[in-house]
């Protein structure tokens, strides 16, 4: 169920939008079509796409034909999308990068991403034991890198959409994996829909 998403990063080439949106959304209708989220292409595929114009003034220009980029250790890129949109209707995304082979929950907690939402208090969740079902996330893209659902997940997520996973049970690839994932935090609270 790969969602086809064309993304324009908030930090990227399109001008960021001021608070009220230019498109008139129908009032009262909280489900909005989501605008796009971009991840920079991985190494070896040319110029970085997330061109923060600000950086180019002092950095040497990244010429696609030019020489060798320094080899970086294999890592997986993540885009975590918050359940609430920014006031102008664009998605609230944060980017992280991490080595593969870890549980998604560990990657999110180390990156200070809000995984549990209202269940973040001590003793409100099972801290990775696979018992409470509060660490649900929705995988928008990159789900093939995650380990298959185990029995615990299948049981807890029986009534939920197929793209949802438990972050404490899902492992992201292997230590030498590379790839990109887009994860929706707190899918039960989101007010937007992802295009298919």
């Amino acid at each position: 169920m790969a969602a086809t998403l064309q993304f324009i990063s908030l930090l990227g080439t399109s001008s960021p939008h001021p608070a009220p949106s230019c498109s008139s959304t129908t009032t009262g209708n909280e489900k909005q079509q989501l605008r796009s989220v971009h991840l920079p292409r991985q190494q070896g595929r040319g110029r970085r796409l997330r061109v923060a114009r600000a950086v180019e003034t002092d950095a040497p220009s990244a010429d696609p034909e030019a020489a060798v980029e320094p080899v970086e250790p294999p890592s997986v890129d993540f885009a975590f999308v918050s359940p609430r949109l920014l006031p102008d209707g664009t998605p609230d995304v944060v980017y992280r990068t991490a080595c593969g082979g870890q549980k998604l929950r560990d990657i999110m907690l180390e990156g200070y991403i809000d995984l549990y939402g209202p269940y973040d208090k001590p003793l409100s969740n099972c801290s990775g034991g696979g018992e409470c079902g509060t660490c649900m996330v929705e995988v928008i893209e990159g789900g093939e890198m995650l380990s298959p659902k185990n029995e615990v997940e299948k049981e807890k997520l029986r009534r939920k959409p197929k793209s949802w996973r438990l972050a404490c049970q899902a492992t992201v690839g292997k230590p030498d994996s590379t790839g990109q994932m887009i994860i929706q935090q707190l899918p039960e609270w989101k007010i937007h829909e992802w295009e298919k």
Partner: protein
Amino acid sequence: MAAASFLPLHLPASPRLATIARAASGVVPAAVQTSQLEEAFGRKGLKFGTDATGAPTAELSVRNGSSLQVRLNDGLVTSYRPKVYWKDELSYREVLHTVAGADAVKGGVGLVLNDASSSSTSLLAGSEWSVTDADSDSYDAVQVELGCSAGKGGTLEVSYVVTLYELSMATAVIVKNNGSKPVELTSAVLSHIRFDKRRGTAVEGFQGCPYCSHPPPASGFALLTPAEAMKREESGWFGGGGEEPRQGAWTVEENLYTVLKKKVSRVYAAPPEERKKRIYNTAPSKFTTIDQYSGLGFRLIKMGFEDMYLSSPGGMYEKFGDDYFLCTGPASILVPVVVGPGEEWRGAQVIEHDNL
């Protein structure tokens, strides 16, 4: 929280209204100016008047009683009083901290736009702001747009849009470069937020975000000058003065709550060195202010800016009135923004709350 209806931002300025506004910004007595503005742009929820020092102001108000006052000659928001639920009753609380100076009020929420290439001279100094448009939906949202020409020879067209919603207020800036050369800007929207007591002041939302000690951009309305903001406080009883990193050194915020009793002047952002990498950990887009004594919290959301500036006056707050305050807001000051000829740059700040 209901999503307020969003108004289209860039309404085409009707030529008749625009000329009246420009004519009004010449040497015209304030009373005449006010009545001309009222005739051109006044509507339900938007009134024009003058403040105590005689400067023309616009007052925006919405149905639930929240109101906002903005000074028209330089776009300073001098008052934001949303309706909040406080001490078991609905009342209005002034969010912004202002100080009546010798000739003008200082503080509030203001825009800083400096030219990065020529030693940070303000691009807005000496520019005349005029009201270019206004919009409202008569109940829950009111918007006023100010415009001015800035930069050498007036090549930059700057629009500043102030909007008041039921549960939030937004200020947005649009810079269009009509000249033939690219221009480098450092910009910020600085807000002075008022708190009840120094001891109970904190912000939440920066955990895990790198920060460095940095002066604020120079501006005419800020209560603390850059030099004053960076001056280290003498260490108090417990010798706690040495915790701020040196300017230029980056550390990571480890605490969930950043308590702001001491004097700090920081920029929270992804370090510029990190931004050159293919992918880097991005900074959070919002944070919440916490006032332990009033129990009210306000969320500041940044859009289009790269950094978040945060400073607290520490012991110096007494020079500026009885209340403690923070000077904070989104900014793009570590790495200047380049706006090429014909290009446009936009940034916005929203202050919202759920205190109802």
